[in-house]
């Protein structure tokens, strides 16, 4: 009966939407009847919020597995990095899956496979800069048709009938749009370095498409594909507009590029999620930096729209405002995640705001209509380095409020101090590296020192692509961040790149071949595992969950997220010491906020209380940060949790994978109360 009802609902729900919407505002985009999850971020404001409270402090510890879905067969080999957030619409869960990035539709109550779609792109897919299953799909309906839209590894946009999984004939050519075309630059269809692994966003019948490249620490060339952003008609797949993230000659922002750099420099894509304000008709683009993550000598100038938040008119692609978070970036501080919309009240004034978490540890808050900063963001002088040919921005923007959610820069005081001996070792170890505050420039790597910059937050955060979640009732933003240094040095290596400098570390001139067995230290081709007796070089917390009140611009609470690793708990040098929970580092951990909880899984394996190897899914009281429940999972969280209501029951779905555990969706739900069993 329930099953029949769901199928009926699948047919009828779009019709009901047409009947009840009336205002037309929501027509032609992902619609949410209340219990669903229709876009990557939960809603187009990227809040990852649902008010449901069936899964709560009393039931969380008793969560049962409703279903699980292994993705090994969706590609020629298993995947170990399953990052998707599934959608749930009309009783059906939709997600990308597997190394082929197939699309699957599952029964939301049981996990049964309803349909799958597969694109074999041959060499084009295998050589793509961003492979694997990606972050998920987008949903679109006009009240009659319903479509699932996604981007393949080979950078083709596919529209599928949501009911059958079949390509939509009227979309592009046979359901596909080749995104390597109409990008205002020549791109080799097979080898051109551009792709996209994030989920698309759709509103007002416009699909917004970003661009991603290979990691940029050591690009082969200063010349690369430009990551322009485009809007497409959701009905036809026709390109509506393009926004040049690297301005063309004569366009605004062109004057931030010196010499001829804008003509050949590439990247500056939007590889992460975008956010849309449907009322204002604006789409917000978190843009990455241009070619060369740590050396910008070939791109002199501030380099708009690198590392900027850009607001575009959704219908036309015209720029409304922008703010550059980092001028002429040298730290790979791409704007990493979807900004979050929040209607906040600051000193009695209502502000339609947008909050942008960052790798560098700040949440930047703006009026989302105008781009004006809600609290002052000050241009302050920063030190220049001495790398030959580099162009240094004289100032960088400093956020004055809210306070940083993560350590920014590093000093001796931040090093491991469980024991005086460990601290002494750490001090000796870092003596070969440059330490300094945020915006300390990376040096040319020298064996005699400095080998490189000890950079905190690292090149991957701070925060990263999962971003945060927002409770719209309280305007508290929740996010996970981690603390782990990157070592950034520059080397001249014409065998690898036509750039004057790329990321690398100097080799020992007296030891042409790196000596295996050497612990921390490093050489090009060797490692820089900056550990002290196998322990992290920085003090804990290694991973943190933070709650930030956006009305007041203040941190409400912070707690370590992730259990203390076995390697700390069992370390011989720490015997007898009482070490509180350290949190876990290096995760890409998305959060979910519900009626009473903040929910997130752990980023690393450990020996769980049940004696098994795995990671916990944890729930915190959203008001206090106190942990109120935890359930074991076989592997760390690798996607971001989402939730939906179906037939009166709340489900919680999360993608897990890692180390030797291949990708799997886990769907939890609270057990029925005894009377209902």
């Amino acid at each position, binding site marked *: 009966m329930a099953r029949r009802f769901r199928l009926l609902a699948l047919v009828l729900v779009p019709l009901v939407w047409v009947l009840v919407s009336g205002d037309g505002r929501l027509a032609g985009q992902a619609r949410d009847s209340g219990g669903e999850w229709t876009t990557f971020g939960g809603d187009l404001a990227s809040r990852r919020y649902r008010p449901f409270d069936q899964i709560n402090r009393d039931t969380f510890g008793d969560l049962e597995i409703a279903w699980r879905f292994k993705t090994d067969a969706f590609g020629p080999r298993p995947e170990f990095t399953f990052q998707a957030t599934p959608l749930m619409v009309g009783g059906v869960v939709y997600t990308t899956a597997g*190394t082929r990035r197939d699309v699957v539709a599952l029964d939301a109550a049981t996990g049964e496979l309803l349909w799958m779609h597969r694109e074999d792109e041959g060499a084009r897919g295998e*050589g793509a800069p961003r492979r694997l299953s990606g972050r998920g799909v987008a949903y679109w309906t006009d009240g009659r048709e319903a479509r699932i839209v996604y981007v393949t590894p080979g950078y083709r946009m596919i529209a599928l009938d949501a009911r059958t999984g079949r390509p939509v004939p009227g979309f592009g050519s046979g359901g596909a749009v080749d995104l390597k075309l109409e990008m205002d630059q020549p791109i080799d269809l097979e080898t051109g370095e551009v792709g996209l692994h994030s989920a698309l966003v759709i509103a007002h019948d416009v699909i917004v498409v970003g661009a991603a490249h290979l990691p940029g620490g050591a690009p082969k060339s200063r010349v690369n594909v430009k990551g322009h952003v485009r809007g497409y008609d959701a009905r036809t797949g026709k390109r509506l507009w393009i926004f040049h993230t690297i301005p063309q000659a004569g366009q605004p922002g062109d004057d931030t590029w010196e010499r001829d750099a804008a003509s050949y420099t590439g990247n500056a894509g939007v590889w992460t999620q975008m956010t849309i304000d449907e009322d204002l008709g604006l789409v917000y683009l978190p843009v990455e930096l241009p070619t060369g993550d740590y050396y910008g000598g070939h791109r002199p100038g501030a380099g708009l729209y690198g590392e900027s938040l850009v607001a575009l008119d959704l219908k036309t692609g015209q720029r409304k405002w922008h703010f550059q978070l980092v001028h002429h970036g040298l730290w790979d501080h791409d704007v990493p995640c979807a900004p979050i919309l929040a209607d906040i009240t600051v000193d009695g004034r209502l502000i339609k705001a947008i909050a942008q978490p960052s790798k560098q540890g700040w949440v930047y808050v703006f009026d989302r209509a105008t781009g004006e900063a809600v609290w002052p963001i000050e241009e302050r002088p920063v030190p220049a380095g001495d790398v030959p040919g580099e162009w240094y921005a004289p100032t960088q923007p400093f956020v004055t409020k809210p306070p940083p959610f993560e350590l920014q820069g590093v000093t001796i005081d931040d090093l491991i101090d469980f024991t005086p001996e460990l601290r002494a070792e750490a001090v000796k170890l870092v003596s070969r590296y440059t330490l300094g505050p945020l915006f300390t420039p990376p040096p040319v790597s020298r064996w005699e020192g400095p080998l490189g910059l000890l950079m905190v937050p690292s090149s991957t955060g701070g925060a990263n692509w999962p971003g945060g979640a927002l409770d719209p009732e309280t305007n508290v933003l929740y996010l996970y961040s981690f603390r782990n240094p990157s070592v950034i040095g520059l080397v001249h290596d014409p065998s690898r790149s036509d750039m004057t400098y790329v990321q690398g570390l100097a080799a020992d001139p007296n030891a042409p071949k790196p000596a*295996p067995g050497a*612990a921390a230290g490093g050489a090009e081709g060797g490692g820089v*595992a900056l550990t002290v007796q196998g322990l992290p070089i920085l003090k804990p917390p290694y991973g943190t969950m933070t709650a930030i009140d956006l009305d007041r611009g203040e941190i409400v609470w912070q707690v370590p997220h992730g259990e203390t690793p076995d390697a700390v708990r069992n370390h011989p040098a720490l015997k007898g010491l009482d070490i509180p929970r350290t949190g876990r580092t290096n995760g890409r951990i998305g959060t979910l906020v519900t009626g009473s909880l903040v929910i997130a899984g752990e980023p690393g394996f450990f020996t769980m209380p049940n004696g098994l*190897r795995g990671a916990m899914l944890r729930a915190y009281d959203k008001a206090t940060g106190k942990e109120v429940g935890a359930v074991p999972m076989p592997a760390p969280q690798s996607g971001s949790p989402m939730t939906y209501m179906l037939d009166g029951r709340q489900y919680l779905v999360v993608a897990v994978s890692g*180390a030797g555990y291949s990708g799997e969706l886990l769907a939890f739900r609270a057990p029925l109360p005894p009377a209902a069993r």
Partner: protein
Amino acid sequence: MPTRAAVLAAWLVSLAPAPAGQMRSVWDGVYTVEQAQRGAALYQTHCASCHGVALTGAEAAPALTGFEFRSNWSGLPLGELFERLRSSMPPEDPGQVSARDKVDVLAHLLAVGGLPAGPAELARDALAGIRFEATKP
């Protein structure tokens, strides 16, 4: 010549961990310097573009050295880490690097991680009997 079934059986046996009492650990000098040097060259050719020249990871691929890498594999037989390399890396075509070469890459990972070299090369059929341990037992 062994039958296909015999090869399969031998492979399955190689995946199964040896009883704990018989297991060596990665701290026991389980690879040679020369092997790690061969692995270093292979790593730079096939792995570094995603995992970084210094194994520290990047946006699209995790670190293969450091505390979290060790923590996530700690307690598992080295055979599991090898199986991950064998079956899924490099992602565009895991078959382009032979299993023998992947054992050398594994030796490079151990060397970079500061684990000691020893007198004998790491061999594929020994992997199930070597435990990956984050800290020296």
